[in-house]
């Protein structure tokens, strides 16, 4: 009776210790990030495949967001701005050996257009394969940001054999790395694609692991268990930057934390009320104490967005006293408990946010306290992220705290159009209309001249800064922890690629 359990125990211990203790130092780059691989469909996990260099899009984007050639070697636009013609790379091949020809690209784009994503919002009339290596896209109206939309991860080009109907059953891309192992939702492994049409990467093998807890990611970096850890929480960032076991890179990215305001609410309809809320926020203190980086937002767009950031726009200030004065002007008088009252109703709002990004509930807690200083009572409802668009549609939203990604498409104009269009947007303005802002925005999509574009952009940004349909709070810093043995690794501000193709092992 006693013999069996002892043998079983020894066996269990043996197998669990047999594995190589640490996976470092075997030439494989271990990448860790918070994004789960939900499935094979580009709309659900397309960004992970693009980041790992398995798939490619027609057009790429450089650090400033300007389109550069990818699968399309060159492109041209007709005079009326409605017909785009693309020349495909001559010797590009899919991982299953099939050539990347116009028919395959058209097929992939047509399928992508049918699914939710920015492509479905572009005024495309038809996509046709003209020759073997030439593709045309006909628009119903001129649309300057088309190139940027084609660079979006959901518009990735997969081999015809990857699809059955519109469903994807295998990830067969054309990128520098081939998919060799796939274990959703947690991990996948890739290998260098020997016959890649572009520059061959130096890294041979890489693994991707999705880890949702920030502490675990930080510990994996510190213990050398992972070579490239994407996205660290504030506290780990301060800890790791002090340690010599790991290099920490940080760059501001086109994602802003902002407060979505329902201008339809009578309490918030007046511009002064929104300005008062903005003045009550100590952005400096928040950035230093909570987010731990110097990116207190002075306007909607961070400097990393280049052309959209207006250097000489007056920054948003922190003046609680002026905020109280403004609210007093609007007829609000402090009640017994310090909360402002006006004809019997308290100045009370619900702040909806979501815990998927760990810092949002933290910022909500700080805002709640700072708003209480000027007599505004906030109750926090941290729930599923879809509540914000849902409450936008049924008009029940008061305030929404969110982290809006302007880099879904290299040129933020795409996100601007969906968020601040005439009827507002799920993640943008709500019940707010500013005629000259709308005019400037729509004209921007049609003209190509840089100077005139810059003027229109300054006008649009000034309108938002003045009217405050959304109140910017902080600009995001993306941080990455890299193993010292890895060189050439960086951060793509547009979060499109981990930069696997540029990495190499230090000698």
């Amino acid at each position: 009776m006693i013999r069996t359990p002892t043998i079983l125990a020894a066996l269990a211990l043996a197998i669990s210790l047999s594995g190589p203790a640490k996976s470092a130092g075997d030439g494989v780059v271990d990448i860790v990030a918070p994004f789960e691989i939900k499935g094979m469909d580009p709309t659900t996990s397309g960004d992970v495949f693009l980041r790992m260099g398995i798939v490619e899009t027609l057009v790429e984007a450089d650090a400033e967001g300007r389109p550069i050639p990818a699968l399309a070697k060159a492109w041209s636009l007709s005079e009326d701005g409605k017909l785009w013609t693309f020349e495909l790379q001559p010797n590009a091949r899919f991982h299953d050996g099939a050539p990347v020809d116009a028919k395959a690209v058209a097929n992939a784009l047509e399928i992508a257009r049918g699914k939710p994503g920015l492509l479905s919002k572009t005024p495309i009339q038809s996509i046709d394969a003209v020759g073997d290596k030439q593709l045309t896209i006909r628009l119903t109206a001129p649309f300057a940001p088309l190139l940027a939309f084609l660079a979006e991860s959901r518009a990735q080009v997969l081999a015809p054999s990857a699809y059955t109907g519109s469903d994807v059953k295998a990830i067969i891309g054309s990128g520098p790395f081939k998919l060799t192992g796939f274990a959703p939702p947690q991990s996948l492994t890739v290998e260098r694609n020997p016959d890649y049409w572009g520059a061959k990467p130096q890294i041979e093998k890489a693994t991707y692991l999705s880890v949702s807890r920030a502490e675990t990611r930080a510990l994996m970096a510190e213990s050398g268990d992972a070579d490239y850890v994407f996205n660290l929480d504030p506290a780990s960032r301060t800890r790791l930057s002090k340690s010599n076991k790991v290099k920490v890179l940080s760059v501001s990215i086109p994602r802003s934390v902002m407060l979505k305001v329902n201008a339809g609410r009578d309490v918030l309809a007046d511009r002064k009320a929104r300005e008062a809320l903005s003045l009550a926020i100590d952005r400096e203190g928040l950035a230093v104490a909570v987010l731990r980086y110097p990116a207190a937002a002075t306007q909607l767009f961070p400097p990393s967005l280049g052309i959209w950031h207006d250097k000489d726009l007056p920054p948003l200030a922190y003046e609680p006293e002026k905020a109280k004065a403004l609210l007093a002007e609007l007829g609000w008088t402090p009640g017994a408990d310090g909360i402002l009252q006006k004809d019997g109703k308290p100045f009370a709002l619900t702040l909806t946010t979501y815990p998927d990004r760990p810092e949002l509930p933290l910022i909500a807690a700080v805002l709640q306290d700072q708003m209480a200083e000027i007599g505004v009572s906030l109750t926090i409802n941290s729930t599923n992220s879809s509540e914000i668009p849902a409450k936008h549609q049924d008009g029940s939203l008061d305030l929404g705290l969110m982290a809006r990604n302007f880099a879904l498409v290299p040129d933020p104009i795409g996100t601007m159009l969906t968020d601040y269009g005439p009827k507002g947007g799920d993640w943008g303005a709500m019940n707010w209309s500013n005629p000259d802002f709308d005019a400037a925005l729509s004209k921007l999509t049609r003209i190509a001249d840089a100077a005139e574009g810059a003027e229109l952009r300054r006008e649009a940004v000034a309108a938002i800064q003045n009217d405050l349909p959304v109140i910017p709070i902080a600009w995001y810093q993306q941080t990455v922890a890299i193993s010292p043995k890895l060189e050439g690794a960086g951060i793509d501000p547009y979060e499109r690629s981990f930069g696997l193709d540029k990495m190499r092992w230090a000698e």
Partner: protein
Amino acid sequence: MIRLLFGRLVQAALVALMVGLLTFVMTRFLPGDLAYRIAAGRYGYDIVDSAAAAKVAAELSINQPALVALGQWMFDLVRFEFGTSLISGQPVWEEVSTQLGHTLKLAAVAILLSLLIGPPLGILAGLRPGGLLDRSLILISTGMRALPQFVVGLGIIIIFSLTLGLFPVAGHDHPGHLVLPALTLALGLAAVSNRVARDAMRSVSETAFYTFGRTKGLSEWEVFRGHGLRNVAVPIITYLGVQFVYLIEGVVVVETLFAWPGIGHALVHAIFGRDVPMIQGAAFIMGLLFVALNALVDALCHLIDPRERRT
């Protein structure tokens, strides 16, 4: 013995019915628009908007009358037809079985480790009640029961992975990844099982047949090996059945901390993302798994102690 197994079968059917009803009723009352939640689960917070939600709503036939939907679901259940997950599009059975596989692997090693740590210490303490080992074990197990799993997990990572560099922190491709999460779970289980073993050993060593073993002329070790071990094994193994309940709580936390692709972690996401078929399928299978494991425990106990009349 057959009576026991028959009892378990009835329990399994009851569980199936209850789990089915409960999850079905609950998913009907979950607040928040189902389509929006699923769109958020599927496309992530950057992309989810009313257009995506509308597309999802069209896909699902959400507004079936409750009773029809219940009937349909029960019918599917009988045929073990769990449908497909709304978020990942994979068949639920496939998703749950892979994730359940990971969780079972983790749970098995955790239980094995806990059996190696808890009961031996408990038995030693039980042989000398009130001794130094006994008193220190009480403090340590109380301490372990007071520490939440994620704090224990963090401590273990810092000790074994950071300072000693013995084991990798997370991931799941080779056995080395299994050790730290399993150890975290095992410590939680051992903190309780060593108390059970101690009390069992103490009461067995006071029984008449234990003393008779001594007066027969057997040495302390021979009495323990012949009579102590088997009689102590029964309460320990019966307690094992109860431990599965605590295991699930631990598994969810440990899977999240160690990024282990298990069922607990997936279940939390499914509930957040309102992935109804996934919730129902996972709950149903986990319920049956519990019953099967309890039946296994009963069989094991019967093997050791064939007396019929144990409650």
